[in-house]
């Protein structure tokens, strides 16, 4: 009996020895490889994009599941639409586009992983997608390391410029600054800032504070709610007692619904204290409820109601493809535009090679639904026209004010004196 209970001892020792041996092998092996490969040999993998056939692969990377699916699905849809149109029209440089779709699952790490897969396993010529800043920040090192291209279609907080990313949404001087210009023009003397607690609202509010100081506007309150926050009675109480001329709203997603219902129920009207939102597009109006948000303001570069032939064609094609009840919005339009811009760049470069495409990018134009846009080759953003809109009873947004002409992108706000020291 005793023998049996002691016998396993040998086994443990053996396993420990095996383990130690394995670890030594593993570590010594890799040590050697590092010595051999590390100094200066750190070149990124050669591109494996195959352009020899009559198709070329591109990647769409959007969150089709998880919390961000609500927004990113729409971007995905309009990217598909653009690809179909381009293919029907003969493709790019005579090659049909072959779409590889990946789901970012609303998680930055998955975006990084899938970006790597699209570039190195699927060998796509360019990737279109991303929505949250976190997902873009997660993908950025991947695209830089692999020297591949990302087209990012959403307005964002600026302060970024990567040679491997084209930003087709607005940067701050094309959305937030014009909105402030508009408010100042309307005689706004005090502002209350409400935002979700993450990078875009915090950066936006930093800019707003600097602008306000230079333009004699008083910031009477600045509140942040955790992402997904659902109870806004306290924040609305604060807004109400602050009694500002207007509210600048950088809340994200679901929180907008709770905020506007609370705002309305507290008896504050768009007339007393208008709210300017920078994250609410046509898609979101339905979820918030038109009755809760009618008359409030938004700042974008595109509305479904924009009056131009290009937009009529876009809206018509979109509705034909996805249904009459589906509205079009700014990020959708920016995504749609991004694919056409890439096409134009490739055709100008007459090459799918990343270096050739970026070299050819400067000055490329496209007659987008929002109006003509021009690529800035220095910072990889595009010149866009700013539009302040008012939400109507029909659930659509109607332009109230326009910057009249495209504003040159300035992601680091270098052209604004008051913004010194912001970045």
């Amino acid at each position: 009996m005793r023998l049996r209970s002691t016998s396993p001892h040998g086994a443990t020792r053996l396993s420990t020895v095996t383990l130690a041996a394995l670890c030594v092998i593993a570590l010594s092996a890799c040590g050697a490889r590092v010595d051999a490969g590390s100094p200066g040999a750190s070149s990124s993998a050669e591109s494996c994009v195959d352009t020899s056939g009559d198709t070329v692969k591109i990647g769409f990377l959007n969150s089709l599941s998880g919390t961000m699916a609500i927004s990113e699905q729409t971007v995905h849809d309009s990217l598909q639409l653009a690809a179909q149109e381009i293919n029907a029209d003969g493709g790019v440089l005579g090659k049909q586009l072959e779409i590889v779709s990946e789901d970012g699952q609303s998680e930055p790490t998955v975006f990084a992983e899938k970006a790597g897969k699209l570039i190195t396993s699927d060998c796509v010529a360019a990737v279109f997608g991303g929505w949250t800043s976190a997902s873009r920040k997660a993908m950025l090192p991947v695209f830089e390391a692999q020297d591949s291209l990302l087209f990012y279609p959403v307005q964002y907080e600026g302060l970024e410029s990567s040679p491997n990313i084209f930003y087709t949404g607005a940067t701050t001087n094309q959305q937030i600054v014009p909105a402030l210009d508009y408010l100042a023009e309307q005689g706004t003397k005090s502002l209350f800032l409400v935002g979700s607690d993450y990078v875009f609202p915090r950066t936006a509010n930093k800019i707003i504070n600097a602008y306000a100081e230079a333009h004699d506007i008083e910031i009477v309150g600045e509140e942040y709610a955790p992402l997904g926050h659902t109870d806004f009675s306290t924040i609305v109480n604060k807004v109400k007692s602050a009694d500002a001329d207007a509210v600048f709203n950088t809340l994200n997603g679901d929180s907008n619904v709770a905020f506007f219902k609370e705002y309305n129920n507290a008896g504050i009207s768009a007339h007393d204290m208008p709210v300017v939102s920078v994250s609410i597009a046509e898609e979101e109006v339905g979820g918030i409820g038109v009755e809760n948000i009618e008359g409030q303001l938004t700042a974008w570069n595109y509305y479904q109601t924009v009056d131009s032939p290009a937009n009529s064609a876009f809206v018509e094609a979109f509705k034909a493809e996805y249904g009459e009840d589906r509205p079009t919005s700014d990020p959708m339009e920016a995504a749609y535009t991004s694919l056409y811009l890439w096409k134009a760049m490739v055709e100008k470069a007459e090459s799918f090679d990343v270096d050739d495409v970026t070299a050819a990018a400067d000055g490329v134009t496209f007659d987008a639904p929002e109006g003509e846009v021009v690529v800035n080759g220095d910072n990889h953003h595009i010149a866009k026209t700013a539009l302040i809109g008012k939400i109507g009873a029909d659930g659509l947004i109607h332009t109230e004010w326009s910057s009249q002409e495209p504003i040159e992108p300035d992601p680091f706000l270098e052209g604004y004196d008051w913004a010194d020291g912001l970045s």
Partner: protein
Amino acid sequence: MDIIAQLFAGLSLGSVLLLAALGLSLTFGQMGVINMAHGEFMMAGAYTAFVVQGVIGDAGISLLVALPLGFLVGGLLGLLLEATLIHRMYRRPLDTLLVTWGVALVLQQVARDVFGAPNVDVRAPAWLSGAVEIGGLALPRTRLFILALAIVCVVALALALRATPLGRRIRAVVQNRDLAEASGISSRGTDRVTFFVGSGLAGIAGVALTLLGSIGPTLGTSYIVDAFLVVVAGGIGQIKGTVIAATALGLMQAFFEYSTTASVAKVLVFVAIVAFLQLRPQGLVSVRTRSLA
């Protein structure tokens, strides 16, 4: 005046938490089942309100129809869950947590596939829009309505548990399953009814929440952690504890949020609960039992 406004905000938040937690205090508190899909039953209630409004149109009537219907939808989902999965797991309470988490994931995705990913809107009836002015204080009607609804639910549940034969059966099974069975009470039947009522309350909470926030597939996830904290802090097996804990949490969140920020307030509330459980590990109100455990 700000203090009074915050007092109301806190009470109102407390009433929302209470609605979310009341059903849990039955299923978790009385039956020991950790139902993570409770939040999704709330979501089902909210979508019920959406569908009902689509059919009826009039916001007022549809709300009044949706409340009992939401109870029914939540309850039936709960019944289904109990009958297919939970009933075989009463001896493994921790495992119910993971199983119902799986159910929650599936229900969320079902909602996404059926109703689409974007949020939908349920209009509040005219008689609930705007605020009631009392001494210069504007109290939103929707919040007053939810406060009243929470009170009604608590009173009805307390009466049902105390005064009806069904309630007596529920309490008997909770206190001693074997003895109750020996005295002829069908514990299977009682379990089902308890789960039905608990889940039905989640449905009602979901309908009520359409007045305040967004209606989307992830509606439930925003409430589930807070709701469980309420039940834990309130103590097992007593509605009284749940009511006090919900109110206290609501007030704490409102006042912390007022003096700091919403993020910090959430963290502070959590710290307060951990500290509180140091003092009273069994929660506010606990039933002493003479057993080893």
